[in-house]
């Protein structure tokens, strides 16, 4: 099949069994790849109600037809599972060189099932696929393991690995690759850890068959030329996502002190220019990416090398935990990367714990003497280590802020900044109605990547809700297609490479000859299926899972957005409007009609059985 590797690896870890199967062509036609494959497979294959960290759960690694192809930023691999952090549908993607290598070895997907007895890693060298002993790597940090495995197997092998946090089942542990790329969110690393899978090592030499290679070359060259000539190209290449720091600070959406924003702070020590001046080493790109958004850095103060900090790290450790020095943030970033923990959830949970500490909900006795106050770098460093190894209070923090607040009580749920159990990424959105709706309805929890509407919100102002639900739905339809194609959204987002180009490239690679509307319908099918997964897995799932924490109803106390807030009525109005556009009922459950319209008739019976429709 053009564009696809053509094979799927299914690994049953309990039985040490490796199977190689042909990729189902119908699946490719109806679900494209990446996140589409994952949504379908998890819905069909996972029994309802399983423990995410038990052997019944599966974790899937999937490519899209463009992963590994000559197309700007076609580097993405998507991991998906039932999340141990949220209990619902989860996928998380990363760039680097892993999926291009997998495709060159001939594979589109790896499905991990069961649980190994002993630590293992998956070795893939073209046609050879083996489960190998990983006892010598177990217990080591991700950066250390990647280096060691490359020394042991060869520099040309691409490695993805978990760290101690994944081994210890920290609920937001991640999967790391290429010394700084992560499938960060929702606890993919914990699921690997529960299965005793430490790493994947892959080498491929075969290349990918293309439907119309001349056409692809022309399209890709035009796209590259367009990108390189764009006025924002050089700036974005230089600063990457850290450029958002200035925007966020100037417009008042920096998530200061657990999204409380009770103090106006300029954060001069976190600005991107300072980062370039003080710690920058090199620009680092993922496969086929002209934008090279990653800043590889070295802190002299703490003597560590790391890929980052990116905007999210700067805003979460810098803003939310209130560390005001770029080198402190860089070091916290390094610790999270090497332990293998999602920076957003780690910093989000620590910021929540800091607020609990300041309010007396967590005591000094419970922190074993650590002064867990906003801005205390030493405390943050100690807590990060405690989380990774679940020592003392670290065990509580390793559960994420939703579970923490349920245990702590005392109204702490009002400022536990999560939706569906996933910590907010770094946009304080009391003045950004569409961004808040994006967070509320994102199908993995409070993540910004499905729909990012800050520029539109700033243009339209913070009060009116007119047209925002429609905007969010449209973005949630277009953006996830990138994660089905296997490409990064940045050329489209940052330098406005028109989506029509992606449609053409997709058809040149696969020969499917789909229109934009065909693709949008597939995307909506996938979105609706992930919603059905939530409805099936979470007993009382419905509108209340889309609602934000009470903090968003408190007027912003300080800064340029001072006074801004949203009301419960407005927020519910957004949801009404949004559900209607989606064809869901007033509790946010897809209707029978909508499911059938999208070719999801088989889901209807299921949801009826569980009393959802």
């Amino acid at each position, binding site marked *: 099949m053009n564009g696809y590797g053509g094979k799927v690896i299914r690994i049953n870890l309990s039985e040490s069994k490796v199977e190689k199967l042909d990729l189902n062509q119908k699946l490719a036609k109806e679900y494209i790849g990446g996140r589409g494959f994952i949504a379908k497979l998890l819905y069909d294959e996972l029994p309802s109600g399983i423990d995410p960290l038990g052997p019944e759960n599966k974790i899937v690694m999937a490519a899209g037809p463009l992963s590994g192809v000559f197309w700007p930023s076609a580097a993405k691999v998507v991991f998906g599972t039932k999340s141990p952090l949220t209990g619902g549908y989860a996928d998380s993607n990363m760039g680097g060189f892993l999926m291009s290598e997998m495709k060159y070895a001939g594979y589109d997907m790896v499905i991990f099932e069961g649980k190994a007895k002993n630590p293992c890693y998956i070795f893939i060298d073209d046609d050879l696929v083996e489960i190998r002993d990983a006892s010598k790597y177990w217990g080591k940090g991700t950066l250390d393991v990647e280096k060691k495995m490359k020394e042991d197997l060869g520099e040309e092998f691409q490695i993805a690995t978990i760290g101690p946090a994944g081994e210890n089942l920290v609920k937001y542990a991640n999967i790391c690759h290429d010394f700084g790329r992560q499938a960060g969110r929702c606890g993919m690393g914990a699921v690997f850890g529960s299965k005793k899978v430490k790493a994947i090592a892959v080498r491929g030499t075969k290349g990918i068959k293309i439907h119309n290679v001349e056409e692809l070359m022309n399209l890709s060259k035009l796209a590259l030329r367009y990108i390189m000539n764009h006025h924002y190209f050089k700036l974005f290449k230089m600063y990457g996502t850290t450029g958002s720091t200035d925007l966020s600070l100037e417009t008042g959406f920096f998530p200061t002190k657990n999204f409380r924003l009770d103090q106006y702070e300029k954060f001069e020590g976190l600005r991107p220019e300072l980062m370039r001046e003080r710690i920058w080493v090199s620009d680092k790109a993922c496969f086929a990416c002209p934008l*090279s958004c990653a800043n590889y850095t070295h802190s002299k103060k703490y003597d560590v090398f790391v890929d980052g900090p990116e905007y999210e790290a700067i805003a979460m450790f810098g803003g939310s935990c209130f560390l005001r020095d770029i080198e402190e943030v860089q070091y916290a970033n390094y610790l999270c990367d090497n332990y293998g923990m999602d920076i957003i959830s780690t910093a989000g949970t620590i910021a929540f714990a800091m607020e609990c500490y300041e309010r007396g909900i967590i005591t000094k006795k419970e922190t074993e003497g650590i002064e867990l106050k906003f801005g205390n770098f030493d405390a943050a460093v100690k807590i990060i280590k405690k989380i990774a190894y679940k020592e003392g209070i670290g065990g509580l923090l390793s559960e994420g802020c939703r579970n923490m607040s349920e245990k702590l009580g005392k109204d702490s749920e009002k400022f536990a900044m999560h939706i569906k159990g996933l910590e907010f990424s770094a946009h304080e959105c009391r003045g950004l109605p569409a961004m808040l709706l994006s967070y509320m309805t994102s199908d993995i929890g409070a993540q910004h990547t499905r729909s990012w509407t800050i520029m539109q919100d700033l243009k339209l102002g913070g009060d009116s809700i007119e047209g925002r639900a429609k905007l969010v739905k449209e973005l949630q339809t277009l953006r996830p297609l990138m994660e089905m194609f296997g490409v990064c959204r940045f050329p489209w987002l940052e330098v406005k490479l028109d989506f029509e180009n992606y449609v053409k490239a997709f058809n040149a690679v696969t020969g499917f000859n789909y229109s934009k509307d065909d693709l949008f319908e597939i995307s909506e099918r996938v979105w609706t299926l992930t919603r059905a997964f939530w409805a099936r897995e979470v007993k009382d799932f419905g509108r209340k899972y889309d609602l934000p924490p009470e903090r968003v109803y408190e007027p912003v106390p300080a800064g340029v957005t001072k006074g801004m807030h949203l009301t419960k009525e407005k927020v519910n109005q957004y949801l009404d409007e949004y559900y209607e556009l989606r064809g869901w009922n007033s509790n946010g459950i897809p209707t029978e009609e909508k499911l059938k319209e999208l070719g999801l008739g088989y889901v209807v019976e299921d949801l009826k059985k569980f009393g959802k429709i």
Partner: protein
Amino acid sequence: MRLEVDSTKCTGCSICQLICVLHHFKENNPKKAAIRIVRKFPVPGSFEIRVCNQCGHCEDVCPEEAIYNEEEVYKIDREKCTNCGICIEECPTGTLFTHKEVDIPIKCDLCGECIEYCPSGALSWSKAEKEEAIK
């Protein structure tokens, strides 16, 4: 004619490799590229581009006289080459490569496609070449 390399500008994106193979083999497989990138991570965090500098040593050592000079570019005559591997072993810069599907050494023929699309300016025609062009 020279290809000038500035590894400090390289970001490791591999567009040069993709385009190299698409141009020469019409295939989407950077593993057959005549240009390679050494990744020095996690320390010191830099890249090194490796590509033939057209020194011509391979012509001297080839026992089959399969390597010839055409306007200062050393090329391999597919008919004469026996893929003995001597040129690869003897290459002073280590920039002749192999791939199991390719029956002769893979060598840069200075087509310039990679220069055209390197997004970071790490590859360029040498200064002498540029001056010549201006004249």
